[in-house]
């Protein structure tokens, strides 16, 4: 199939059907243009989106299926951008979950035109991005790492993290400290001490 992306690589292609959709006013940071496409939006060489408002879906339940049929098997990532604009959405969403599974669509919910516009922008702007930011923890400074590390157990906060390392000098010393020693620090009550010591001594593996 002729993929329309070649003609307009830097802009979002919008189907003329979408004329008047308030979402279009919310695509602000990227250019967009109308094009003759089976999907509602084309967001990259292999990515397209169908837009569905649940309010409309309830009135015309067959609409989305005709659109999906027209789309055929084109595109690799087919987003079904669904706007939740009704209160009792449960039934519709249940149906759409099943539909998305059968028709190979990825369901994305949004709750406002603004958010919908943002999703479209995001998909377009990440077209060539690599998923590094979700693949591994983000690199950050030592102090941030330190605080992140110490505050993992519940109820231990930043203040506690700071008082802990400053009392022991290093993470290693803090990890190896005896509960009584930690209890001496102001702000560290028994519960926190117990949780901290318990966690660092707890085995990684639950051995049988």
């Amino acid at each position, binding site marked *: 199939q002729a993929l329309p992306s070649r003609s307009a690589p830097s802009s979002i292609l919008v189907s003329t059907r979408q004329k008047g959709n308030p979402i279009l006013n919310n695509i602000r*940071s990227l250019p967009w243009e109308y094009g003759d496409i089976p999907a509602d939006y084309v967001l990259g060489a292999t990515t397209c989106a169908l837009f569905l408002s649940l309010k409309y879906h309830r009135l015309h339940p067959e609409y989305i299926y005709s659109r999906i049929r027209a789309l055929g098997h084109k595109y690799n990532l087919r987003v079904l951008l669904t706007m939740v604009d009704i209160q009792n959405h449960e039934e519709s969403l249940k149906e759409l*979950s099943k539909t998305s599974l059968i028709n190979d669509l990825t369901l994305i*919910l949004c709750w406002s035109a603004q958010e919908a516009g943002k999703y479209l922008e*995001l998909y377009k702007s990440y077209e060539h991005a690599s998923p590094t930011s979700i693949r591994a923890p983000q690199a950050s400074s030592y102090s941030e790492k330190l605080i992140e590390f110490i505050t993992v157990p519940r109820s231990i906060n930043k203040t506690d993290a700071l008082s802990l390392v400053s009392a022991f000098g290093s993470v290693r010393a803090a990890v190896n400290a005896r509960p009584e020693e930690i209890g001496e620090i102001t702000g560290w009550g028994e519960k926190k001490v117990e949780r901290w010591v318990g966690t660092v001594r707890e085995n990684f593996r639950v051995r049988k």
Partner: protein
Amino acid sequence: MPSETAKPPVKLSLPLEYQQDCFSELRNEDELVILARGLGLLRVVTNLLHSYDAIGNNLVVVVGADERENGWIGEALAEHAAISKAPAARGLSQVNTDMMSVGMREKMYSQGGIFSITSRILVVDLLSKLLNPETVTGLVVLHSERIIATSIEAFVIRIYRQMNKVGFLKAFSDNPEPFTTGFAPLASMMRNLFLRTPSLWPRFHITVAKSLEGRKKAEVIELEVPMTDGMRAIQNAILECVEVSISELRKADTGLELDDWTLDSALHKSFDVIVRRQLDPIWHRVSYRTRQIVNDLSVLRGVLHALLTYDAVSFNKYLDTILAAHQPPPGSNRQNQSPWLFLDAANTIFETAKRRVYTGKPVDEEAPGASGALPDSLSPTLEEQPKWALLADILEEIEGDAYFNPGIRDDSNGTILMMCSDQGTCRQIREYVQNMHVRPQQATEDDDVDSDAEVKASATLMMRRKLRNYLNWKRDFARVSASLFTENQKVLESFTDQMGANGYRGKGPPNKRRRVRGGSSAASGGGRPVNSSLQMAADRESQLATLIANIQPADADSEQKDEVAVDSLDDMEGYFELYEMNDLVVVHPYEGDMDEHILEEVRPRYVIMYEPDAAFIRRVEVYRSSHNDRNVRVYFMYYGGSVEEQRYLSAVRREKDAFTRLIKEKGNMAVTITLDGAAPSDPQEQFLRTVNTRIAGGGRLAATAEPPRIVVDVREFRSSLPSLLHGRSNVVVPCMLTVADYVLTPNICIERKSVRDLISSFKNGRLFNQAETMLQYYKYPMLLIEFDQNKSFTLDTFGTDHTTNLSTANNPQDLQSKLALLTLAFPRLKIIWSSSPYQTAEIFDELKKQQEEPDPIKAVQTGLIAGEDPSDQSFNQTPQDMLRAVPGMTEKNLSRITLEVGNLADVSNLTEEELDVMIGKEAGRQVYRFFNRSVLED
């Protein structure tokens, strides 16, 4: 006391009338017992358990007991068994970790006895029939206030009742408040528990009152202690900060409703909890700033508490830590400072706290040049906590009392028991009292005036030592925060560079207003009084030299007495052992039901309650009434007009109100019960009918074939979804899964994430790996994003929050962009959005329609390398998450380390070489450096 039970003579220990009443009621029928706090709930429970234990041939399961309660029940059962010489009694067996193998558990269950089983394991064992519900004699549910419809305990009870109609079921609670929120709370709670009769035992119950208010009443002396001016000033300033924070929250337009809010309510309400609870439904949507202010409220409440419990020096130290933790990185272009730090009131807090430790420093002294002249004028104030002096007085009075009336020798020891809220306070009192006890020994004992003077001197001694330690600590601490800050600065620079390169439109210009504020505070050598947090930091650093100089006089003063004040805890215990039981002073924190043991073991003549605790007063009453010949006198002190007093009073009031409401509801509930009785008597039938609304559809046809089956990872039993799936007549097969959380069909697998999980597992990269493996093994992998039942079903942030608007395009932090990245990376990964676990259960049913059933064995083996035992794959989550935060930790390194090293402490003690072997040179170096880097040096 002899029991009424017919069969073999079982000896019980229930001396009081209400306890006996409660027990005989329980023996006769299934009910929910709600006993007022401090009236000895566990004693009733253990006696009940013993009555079954002694007969033998029973299998009774205790649900919901925590570790301490297990310890108590175990001990009590053993004791009872010894007393009533019951040969059949087996005592308590605990099943509380995954450590116990399946085979071992099966064997234990077949032997019978009393079991305390962690709910999560119990559910799995019941479902897999490892513990056949039909063989269970009865279920005893503790902490039944925690049981809501979707909780795992409710699930346990349902499975039990479904399979076993004859076994007994008794529920207990000593916490009436949770039973009074919501609509017809007691009735719905009873439904969850499959019980009919509530049995209420408030303190004002006639039998209880009669039992406790007989002629053996405990003598209680109430002492109100005034706060010092400094403390009062700080308390008022904190309240002001709270007030401002709350009005900030209101401004943020989050629909927060605090209509009845007054300044005073900050004193007696746990306001941070109230606010958090109100914001909870929309927590994932509120802006960063709102979240920060809510955190501030918690911090402020912490300070409010610390003001009363910590001594002046520790309090000041605590404030220092808080201040440092709230420092934004210098030059930060985000307005992320806590608003309360900008208030004059905040300044008052910090300054007054400092003045309680030492004076001589002008309040808004700014020019560093002037500080050169200051050291001479600095002198330690070292304000003492007012309660200390009172404590000394009380001890003296007791001493006098014991001296003048030595005649009354009864069953109690002459011991003085001091109770306070936590270990920290314990330590403080111990230290104080220790100093008082050391001195009189050396001086002559009967010289009253002398010893009194000594007492006061020794308190100063303690404070001086604390001050010295504090100043030393402060020097180190300044270095720590300095080293952390410089690094922050560096990273921040690189980060902004990165942002500029990455962003689509380039980084938006920093808000002008913010820049002005940052600049002004950094350069405000001029006229303004100190009221910004940045200013205070600068203030501190420039004066470090002065402070160090200040140590000297303090040092010189206390050096001579240095040996007297030994700090170590261990030494202290040895010290107390020198005394006879009659001279003992025992300091102990409140520990709920455990306090009963303390009273029984110590048998004190005098009890000093350093902090008020309503439950403990009752425990003393119970203790006193249970023993004819033990006199006890209670001194009970609190700070007048303080949080402490208010909290105590409102706790008492709340409990009473709760019971009143419960009694009222119980009276009305008769109606609902008769209705229940008219309906089919089987409660689980009714449950299914209410949940499963679709039984009339095509579902029936499918039901004639194989029942629908869902394979669920055992770790998922912490959530409510398995319970609901079971409620919708699915067969839930608990398994140890390596890939995914739920397997619906041979092709469909599901990874469930709550919004909170979603955020964190995006952050540490776990979701990416999970998606990868799911795609590898299943045709239709799905990510389920599940919102909480009561939380708003949206990810949208609040309306016009311009800070987020500015950065939407290039902010890689928010959830939406991460979702976009994820779906772009894995186009085949499908997403299910569910507004609640109930909805999820329905969606699962829909997805399973006309599909094959999954094979549990295959599901378990999926993702395992050949020959691996599935049980090796279970990990503890929290330590793993911590390890994930360590730099250099990729998913591969992580699994390597978790397989080869025992726990975090062991990881931290590895040498660089050992790490090198395991995870390679670079990563090894990073990990090693993370643990071993000293924050004290640069």
